[in-house]
Every structure is written in C-alpha cells, then in structure tokens.
C-alpha cells in the first residue's frame, strides 16, 4: 500500500517539476550519492552533456541505496520509471529476477550504435554482475572492497613493525598492543560483508550452493559449514574479554572506534579513505585483509561492494542510444580515473587503473591501490566471484542479528552461524517462490 502511495507522490512530484521545453532528449538518472559524491555525479553528467547535443542526462539524488531502489521500483509500478537507476550490489538478485522491468546492459550496448568493449572492465568487478553465460547485466560504477585500516602511530608504540598479514599475527599484535597498555586491537564494520562474505571468498570457500546463487534460485546458504570461520568468529568473540575486539555497531557505525584511536585496526570498505583522512589525527594506512592460515595458505581474491547502474525498460528504443553513449562516456579512462581518485572507489576498467598509475597517483598516495590489488589477486573462482541471493538485504540483517547475539555472548559462533543460515534459507525459499 505504501509503495503505491509513494509512487503516486513521486509521479505528482515529477509532474510538478516538469522540465522546460528542451529539444534534447532527457535521460533520467536516479542515484544514491549524497554530498561531495553527488556533486561529482552532477559534474560527470554535465561533462557528458557537453560532448553531444542529442541527449541530456539528468541526475537526481533519491536518498540512500535502499531509498533509491524503493523509489525506482515504486516509480516502475506507477509507470514513471527513470532510464538509469543506481542499485547496490545486494539488490542484484532482486533486479535481475525482474524480467520485463530491466534491460540488461549488454543488450543496451549491443543494440546501440557505438563501439564498446565488455572486456575493458576489471574481471573481479564485472564478474559480480554478469550472467553465467557472460552477459553483463548492469554497469559497474562505484565499487569498493574491504581492506585492513591501521593506525601507524599505535602500532609503532607497541613495537609492531609489519602490519599483520594473518589472523594469528592479528592476535599476536593484540598481545603486543595490550602489553604497551592499549586495549582494543581491532574492530570492523559491515560485518556480514567483511567477516562472512569476504572472508569466505578470500579463502575460496562457498557462501551458498549453486555458485553462491549465480546458477539458480534454488541456492542454499552454507557459510555455517566453514569450520575455520566458526572457530575464528568464536575466537574473536572470546577475545572481547581482554578487550582485543570491540563491536561498534552495524554498517560504518564503528568508524569512530578507529578514528578516535580507540582501536588500532579496522576492517571495512576502502571507500572510507576520504572519511578517515578527514577525521583521523594520526598516521594511517590500508593493507590487505588478514589470511587465516588454518583455512588457506594464500588469499584468493576479495569481493566488491558498492553499486551498479541498471537500465529500466519502458522507454522508446531511441532513448537507449543516449543511455549507451552515457555509459560509454562513464567508462572512459579519464572519467573513471578521476572518479576513482576523487572517491576512493576502485577504478572499474583496467585502463583507468593504468592511467592513475601513470599519473603517479598511487606513488603519491601509498596504499590507495590495496583494494584493486585485492580484487585482482587471482582470477575469480565460483566462490570468489560474488554472490547472488534473493532477499539478501534482509538476510544481511539476519546475519547482523545473529552475530550480535554472538558478540553479546548469547550464542556460540556455531549456533549463531547455523541459525543465520537457517533463517536465511527460509527467505531464499520465499524469494524462489515469488519469482518462479
């Protein structure tokens, strides 16, 4: 009911804000980038609009990721959908299941009169958003991956020269920190993404069956079967007693733990670069996520978070030419390199990475290429390509809840993980039911 109501409101707003008479065809682009990033998008759109006079891309900020997605879906139900909508990675399954509502990017680009190379995109980024037969569904735009942020000053005080590369070294570092009088060694944010989804990809283990859901809706979560993950999470929970780990809430709520100097290390998105440089009054850096040597000798590759651009159905064919041209412009090395260096998101094409490299960006800002190195460490496997589970926004909430029960000592790691998998599987079955 509320969806339909907000759809009506959206439609009414659009009617009110009717654009002035324009000869150029408008391409509506709804995004979820507020603040400085939103201004950057305006700038990119303006840049594109100047390159040609047939189309005008109109970016509109619609709130955060969930709000933007809900608004777009409501608009679709009311027949007022934008051409392009930015959707976060966990919404992928919902979007791709909506046959008849979305137009695969591959198709948009192939039908359009442009030259376009699908192989220009980084494999680890692209693979998250392609079908099993290799067709690109949505255009990668802003992608990041979790890294290990560290407080150089605190590590130095504790006499830790090398940033921990394994989980055993993490706990050894904690001992040293505590010996030097500093309690909290590490914390993390977006715990499902960092400690579960990425941990498993990093160690080449499955999150769910059917290639993490890529190969079918009848997928089941199996993350509770990873013994080394269970043991590690239990070890982290137990380490709270000594103060080694401190839980600071969902999403990025734990950022102050790191920037205030309370915890020496923090695992979260590489896209916190701007935020941390803004707030931290100490020397900091980013390094690769620690490896659990009980699980694997070396790391596989990490998976991305962030968002992609989806094209919605229901507009005249000629307007999709404009969408394709805009996407081509967005993917050009210059635009991508600029976006990457400004935002801390990874460059989505190899060319943009090379351009940033030749501009000397990584030399001037050491560590800023950690994310891209993690993503391209190895060719992605079925376990490390990403994940595609329906209702995943809710499943992440479930994982949050169960892990919180673990941190609070209400459950053991084994109980929390198996409860999370069981509750998650119920939602997967529901999604399967409503989409088949």
């Amino acid at each position, binding site marked *: 009911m509320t969806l339909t109501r907000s759809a009506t409101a959206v439609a009414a707003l659009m009617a009110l804000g009717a654009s002035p008479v324009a000869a150029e065809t408008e391409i509506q682009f709804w995004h979820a980038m507020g603040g400085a990033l939103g201004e950057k998008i305006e700038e990119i759109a303006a840049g594109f609009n100047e390159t040609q006079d047939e189309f005008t891309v109109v970016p509109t900020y619609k709130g955060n990721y*969930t709000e933007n997605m809900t608004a777009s879906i409501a608009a679709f139900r009311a027949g007022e959908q934008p051409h392009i909508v930015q959707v976060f990675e966990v919404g992928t399954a*919902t979007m791709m299941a909506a046959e*008849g509502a979305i137009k695969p990017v591959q198709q948009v680009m192939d039908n359009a009169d442009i030259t376009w190379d699908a192989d220009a995109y980084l494999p680890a980024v692209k693979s998250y958003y392609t079908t099993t037969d290799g067709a690109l569904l949505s255009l990668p735009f802003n992608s990041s991956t979790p890294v290990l942020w560290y407080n150089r000053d605190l590590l130095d005080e504790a006499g830790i020269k090398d940033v921990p590369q394994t989980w055993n070294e993490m706990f050894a570092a904690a001992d040293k920190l505590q010996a030097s009088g500093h309690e909290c060694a590490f914390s993390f944010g977006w715990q499902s993404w960092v400690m579960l989804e990425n941990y498993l990809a990093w160690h080449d283990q499955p999150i769910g069956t059917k290639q993490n859901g890529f190969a079918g809706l009848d997928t089941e979560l199996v993350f509770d079967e990873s013994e080394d993950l269970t043991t590690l999470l239990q070890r982290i929970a137990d380490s709270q007693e000594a103060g080694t780990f401190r839980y*600071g809430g969902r999403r990025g709520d734990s950022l102050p733990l790191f920037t205030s100097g309370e915890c020496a290390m923090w695992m979260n998105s590489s896209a916190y670069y701007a935020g941390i440089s803004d707030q931290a009054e100490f020397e900091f850096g980013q390094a690769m996520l620690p490896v659990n040597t009980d699980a694997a000798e070396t790391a596989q590759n990490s998976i991305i978070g962030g968002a992609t651009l989806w094209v919605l159905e229901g507009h005249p064919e000629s307007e999709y030419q404009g969408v394709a041209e805009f996407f081509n412009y967005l993917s050009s090395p210059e635009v991508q390199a600029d976006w990457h260096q400004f935002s801390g998101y990874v460059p989505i094409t190899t060319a943009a990475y090379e351009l940033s490299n030749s501009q000397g960006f990584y030399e001037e800002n050491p560590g800023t290429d950690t994310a891209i190195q993690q993503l391209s460490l190895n060719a992605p496997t079925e376990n490390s390509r990403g994940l595609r589970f329906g209702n995943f926004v809710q499943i992440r909430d479930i994982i949050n809840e169960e892990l919180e029960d673990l941190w*609070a000592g209400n459950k053991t790691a084994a109980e929390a993980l198996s409860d999370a998998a069981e509750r998650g599987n119920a939602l997967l079955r529901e999604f399967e039911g409503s989409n088949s």
Partner: protein
Amino acid sequence: MARLVALEVHVLTKKVTFSHRWLPYLLVAPQIAITLVFFIWPASQALYQSVLRQDAFGLKTEYVGLANFAKLFNDPLYLQSFYTTITFSALVAGVSMAVALVLAVMADRVVRQATTYRTLLIWPYAVAPAVAGVLWWFLFNPTIGIAAYALDALGYDWNHYVDGGDAMTLIVVAASWRQVSYNFLFFLAGLQAIPKSLTEAAAIDGAGPLKRFVTIQLPLLSPTVFFLLVVNVVYAFFETFGVVHATTDGGPGQATTILVYKVWRDAFQGLNLGSSAAQSVVLMAIVIALTAIQFRFIERKVEY
C-alpha cells in the same frame, strides 16, 4: 488516530441541531474524504496485499490465502517481537506519564514565571522522532557520546551495540522524552480543571500536599490518566519507528525489533510486501481493539 477519535467522541456527545438538512453532511464531507483517501483506501490495499505473494516490481502476483499470516504466527521471532513491543510500550507509557505527572504537579504549583516553565517543558514535542533518535544516538554513542562517557566515569560500561538492555533503555528514553511534553500538557490542563475549593478545603482540614495529591487530585485526574495511557500505548506501538531506525536498527540481535519497525523494514528494505502487509493488518487489528476499549470506557465511566 485514537487521539482524534477521543476528541471526536467528546464533541459528538453534545447534541447539536442544524437548520439545514444537508449542512451537517457538507461539513463532515472533507473529513470523510480525508479518511477515505488516507485511511480506508490504504488500509484496504494492505488487506488485499496481505493475501498475495508478489515480487518487488509487481510483475508476478500469486494469491496465497492466509499463508502470510500463518508464516508470521509460526515464526518464534515474530512472537518474540510482540513481547518486545509490549515491554517497550509499557515502559514508554509508564516512564513518560510518571515523569510528566511529576512535572505537571510541580508546574501547577509554580506561580512566578509559570509560562516560561511550561513553554520549556512543551518544547521537546516539536522535535521529530527521528531527530530525537539521532540526538540520543549521539549522546549515548559508546565511543563519542557524552552520556556514555559520564556513565563510564560512574563505572558503567555502556554499549548498546552489544547489550540488549542498554539498547532497550536507549529507545525507551528517546521515545519517552518527546512524549513527556505531550502528557505534561494534558496533566497540567487536568490539574487546573480541578476546582481550587476542593484542595483548599482539604488543606484547611490539615491534609499535606502529598495527601491532597493522592486523595483528591489523582482520583479526579483518572479520566486523563486513562486517556493518556491509551494514547501513549498507541504512540509506542505505531509512531516510534523513527526512533528505532535512528538509534538501534532493531538490534543488537532482535532486542529492539518492535512490530512497527519490522513492518517498515520488511517492506522498504526487504521489499517483502506480502509479509509486511500481513504485519500491518495485525497492527491494524491491535489499534482497532485499543480504540474500541477506549470508546467503551469513555462512554461508560468518564464524565467531562
């Protein structure tokens, strides 16, 4: 809603006769129209949606009968959410009414600067629940919050991210704070409506302030107390989603997942419309029950 209904009842019990036959209908027409558009229509949509299973885009729809409801009531976590909501509502109603009553009794005695005190006490009501939530979130943030810092100094390790009790305390405080102002207004009005002669006579007979309050003022305030109880429970049940959203997100675990927050989360984050609609219908049944109780009680017992 219940608030409105109560006021309407109050007005309607006084019989008014109109000279024109159509005038009364014309006068209530706008209200009827608003009720139809903003209440009856969405409510019927919720009822309809609650028996369907539909994907987010509305491309595939399937009639599933009462399956959405059956799933809810077989879910131990949903039932637990009921207990959480009842605990939360009882605490919010109790805390906000008790504090408001104390403040009202004290403000009733103040002679100098009475308006200033009153205005200041009513102020928080103007703050939107979500803003109130953010405010308290900052105060009680375990790392940077000043209240958490003060508690730490007193030897209490506040962390509502891990401790369910702390989280519940936080949302109760945040939700009650604003409601205190509202309750205060009604209590103060109620107290001022009590004839001064009664309390004065008791004072002459030697009753102290506490005795006068317990034996005279409180019994005479009982209609207000009952009315506020219903209003506050309704508020805690249905209007506190913003507070939870801005502070705890229903966590840690399910410690603060109240029913109305779950409705919002399943619909707007989960895009699970069928289940969310079914939950709305359950909530609707609760509010209808609460309003019905209030109606009966007011009709029978309360004389204005």
